[in-house]
Every structure is written in C-alpha cells, then in structure tokens.
C-alpha cells in the first residue's frame, strides 16, 4: 500500500513537472519580457559557478592525463594523448561532469531561494502586487541556466585541456603550440556541435527542476531543505537520461 502511494506520488510529480515545463513554454514568448532580470540571473548564475567549474575542469584535465599516460606509454602512443583527451573531454566528460557540478551548485541554489520565497509569502506578495512571479522568477532563471551552462562548459573544457597540457608539458616536454595543434587537428565540428547542443538541454533541465522544486515548495523551512536537496537529485538523474538520449541521437546522425 505504502509502495503504491510512493509510486503514485512519483508519477504525479512527473506530471506536475511536465505541466510546469508546459507553462514555461506558454509564457516564455508572451509579454512582458523580463530582460533586466534575465541579465541579472545570467550574471548571478555565471558568477556563482565560474570558479567551481574552472577548478573542476582543471582537475578533470589533470587527472585524465595523469591516469591515461602510463597506459599509452606502454604502447608508445603518448603522442595520441592530446587527441584522446580532447575527444573525451569535449564529447562527454566535460559536458556531463561540468553539468553535474552546475546542478549541485545552481539547482540547489534556485530550489532553496525560491523555496524560501514561497514559504515566506514573497511569491504571493509578487502575485498580489500585479507582477507575474512565474515570469519574473521562473522563466528568467530557466533561461539563464540554459544560456549559461553551454558557455561554462566551453570555458570548463578549455581549462580542462589546459590542465592536460600542463601534465603533458611536465612529463613529456610538449610545447603549448604543439599540444593545441594536435587538439584542433583531432577535433571536428561533429564532436563539438552535438556536445554543445546537449548542454543547452542540460541547462534547461537544471533550471527547470530547480525552479519546479522551489516554486512548489511546501511545509515551511523543512520543505526548503527538501526542495534544495531533491532539486539536485532530480536534476542529476535527468542529466543522465538526457545524456543517454543525446548520445543515442548523435550516434544516429554522426556515427560516433
């Protein structure tokens, strides 16, 4: 009985999330547009994540190179290192790990912020003052996450490649120009474009789940904690599902 009600409430929540997304698409193209707030949210989201994403990217590059190097060395294939690292970072590791880091930072932040606004009646106050809080709070945050994540992923990927270059330079005496020449020779648009497109969907999913959890927060301060927590869990799960779909589609069109 308990199991049934848990399954039922899970599907109800999925339905509500779809309805919430539908409301987003319905209201995003209608006036009034909150450009100023959108820019503010882009700045906030970017500013809040850039250091974390930079550090994450740098460590991804370092670790990947350090751990792969001995194996490649065994086959005398160290010269393949820039190609291998760049493809794995640009195609998969960069977007997914950076998006997961972004989800941890932004989905929980949005969930907690909107959740506390809900329980302290700030969202009701906006509604009563004749401003549509969905447009002001939700649409701007979802759009900002959708716009900022691809930019942050490109930035994180670049830092990751730089981290990889540092190891290559230290261990193999490879110059900056040589390393990045190899990287750009290897990479094709078919690596970059699908990977960038999927980050828009990742950003949208993170913003959507964070806003959904926060906007519908109930049960006081306990609810705020739950909203922040479950926003990260749901967003991470959704990322993996979207990644699978993206890889599947890319495979059809680009034959990875």
């Amino acid at each position, binding site marked *: 009985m308990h199991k049934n009600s848990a399954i039922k409430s899970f599907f109800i929540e999925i339905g509500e999330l779809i309805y919430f997304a539908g409301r987003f698409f319905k209201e995003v193209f209608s006036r009034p547009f909150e450009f100023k707030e959108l820019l503010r949210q882009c700045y906030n989201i970017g500013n809040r994540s850039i250091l974390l994403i930079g550090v994450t990217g740098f460590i991804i590059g370092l670790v990947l190179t350090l751990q792969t190097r001995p194996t490649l060395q065994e086959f005398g294939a160290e010269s393949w290192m820039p190609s291998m690292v760049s493809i794995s970072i640009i195609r998969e590791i960069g977007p997914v790990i950076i998006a997961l880091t972004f989800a941890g930072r932004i989905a929980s932040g949005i969930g907690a912020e909107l959740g506390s606004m809900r329980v302290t009646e700030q969202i009701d*106050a906006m509604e009563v003052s*004749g*401003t549509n809080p969905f447009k002001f709070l939700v649409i701007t945050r979802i759009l900002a996450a959708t716009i900022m994540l691809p930019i942050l992923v490109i930035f994180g990927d670049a830092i990751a490649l730089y981290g990889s270059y540092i190891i290559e330079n230290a261990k193999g005496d490879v110059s900056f120009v040589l390393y990045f020449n190899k990287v750009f020779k290897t990479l094709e648009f078919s690596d970059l474009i699908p990977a960038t497109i999927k980050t828009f969907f990742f950003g949208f999913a993170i913003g959507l789940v964070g806003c959904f959890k926060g906007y519908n927060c109930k049960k006081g301060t306990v609810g705020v904690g739950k909203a922040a927590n479950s926003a990260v869990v749901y967003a991470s799960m959704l990322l993996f599902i979207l990644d699978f779909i993206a890889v599947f589609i890319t495979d059809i069109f680009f034959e990875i």
Partner: protein
Amino acid sequence: MNQTQNILDDTKKQNAKKLMLEIVDLRKSFGDNHVLNGFNLELFEGENLVIMGKSGSGKSVMIKCLVGLMQADSGSIKVMGKDITKLNRVELDNIRTEIGFLFQGNALYDSMTVRENLEFPLRRHKKKLENINDTTLLVIEALESVGLAHAINLMPSELSGGMKKRIALARALILKPKIILYDEPTSGLDPITSKEIIELMRRVQKQYKTSSLIITHDVDCARVVSERMILLVDGTNYAEGTFNELALSNDEQVKVFFK
C-alpha cells in the same frame, strides 16, 4: 410630492457609500475539511472592517481567495464591482493594483533593498499613477508616510520587526490602492510596537482614504481600528456589529474573543 421623494432618493444615493468589496456565499474545502461555509462580507468606501476568528476558522483562506491567490469552490467575490473569479490574468493584475496587502510575515523581498522592494510594484503598473515619472519621489513619499525615509537603502535583514512591518505597509501603499488588506498586522510584535502600528494604520487610512479589511486576533487592535466587526466561526459569519455591540454580547462563543 413625487419631486420631493426623488430629491430625497438622489440625496440618499449620494450619501450611500460605495461598495468596495462584496463576498457572497463563499465556500472552500480541502478534501473533507470545509474551511469556508458560505461566508459573506461587504466593505464600504472608507470603512475599517475587522474580521476576528480562531485559528483554522478560515480567515487566511478567505483573504487569499479575495486576492485570487486561491480559487474558491463557489460563491462570488466582487472587488469594486468586478467579480474576480471571472477575470483573466491581465484584468486580475489590474484590479490587484487597487488592493494593498500587508502580509502577516511582511513578505519583504529579502534579496532587494527597501527602495527596490517599494519600486517592485511600480515596474508594471506605474502608468496607473498619472503625472508621476519619478519613482524615487513615490518611494520617498510612501516611506515618509510610515516614518522610515532614512531606511531607503537598507536590506530587510537590517530592519527590526516593527520596521519591517512599516516598510511592508509602505510597499502596500505605493500604488495608492483603494483597499488595504491587513493579515494579522500586530502579530509577533511587542505591545509598544503594536500600538505604533495600530496608530500608523489609522493615520494611513486618513491620509490615503482607503477602505481597510483587517484580520486580527488582537482585541486592542480591533477596538481601536474597527468601525464594524465580523466574527468568523467554522467558516461562516457568526456575529456582526460594532466593537461595543459584540464586546457586550451575552453569547458564549462571542465572549471568548473578548476575554
């Protein structure tokens, strides 16, 4: 004779106060919990109407239905003659500019300064206030009316409980509404600050010539501000009258409120 009667009727009509709010047979349930069971209310122009009721009697649900934050199951809610249950989003937003709402917990936007809090309702509805282009003047005017012009650049976290209440009132007044809804205006305040807020409510009503609907548990507040009172019991009008009429009532349920 007929002419005299007509003149009398006209005079009566002119003297009759305009109906600002009218709730008829309002019902709202949450599952089996029937919170509002045919509640009725009339608020006239310039009037201060107090609604008292125990916790869970449906006061907050009623006030949320009144501003469209909650959908009633049945009944009509007319704000200045317009049934808000039948309005679309834009019309509802426009009618909301005629209503100022002072929330129980103040509901100040804590990521914004006092100035930004007060400017927020003006973003979309500045055109309602004719001949006013400078929002700063409006903000200062509203802050001066609550005696807190010096707090314009502070954050809500830097304000005391009483100051927050005053700023929330200033925000409710910024669009110069015709009706103000007060949800427990003195709750959580010490007796001295409560008196200051009550005095402020009276002053604001005279200055802005608003009609006020006040939900409160505070008998002192009701005594000072009310012109008429409704006692809400089990989601319906249990008793109505002036403060003195109700305070002198022999009904046991009514007496409980005035102990």
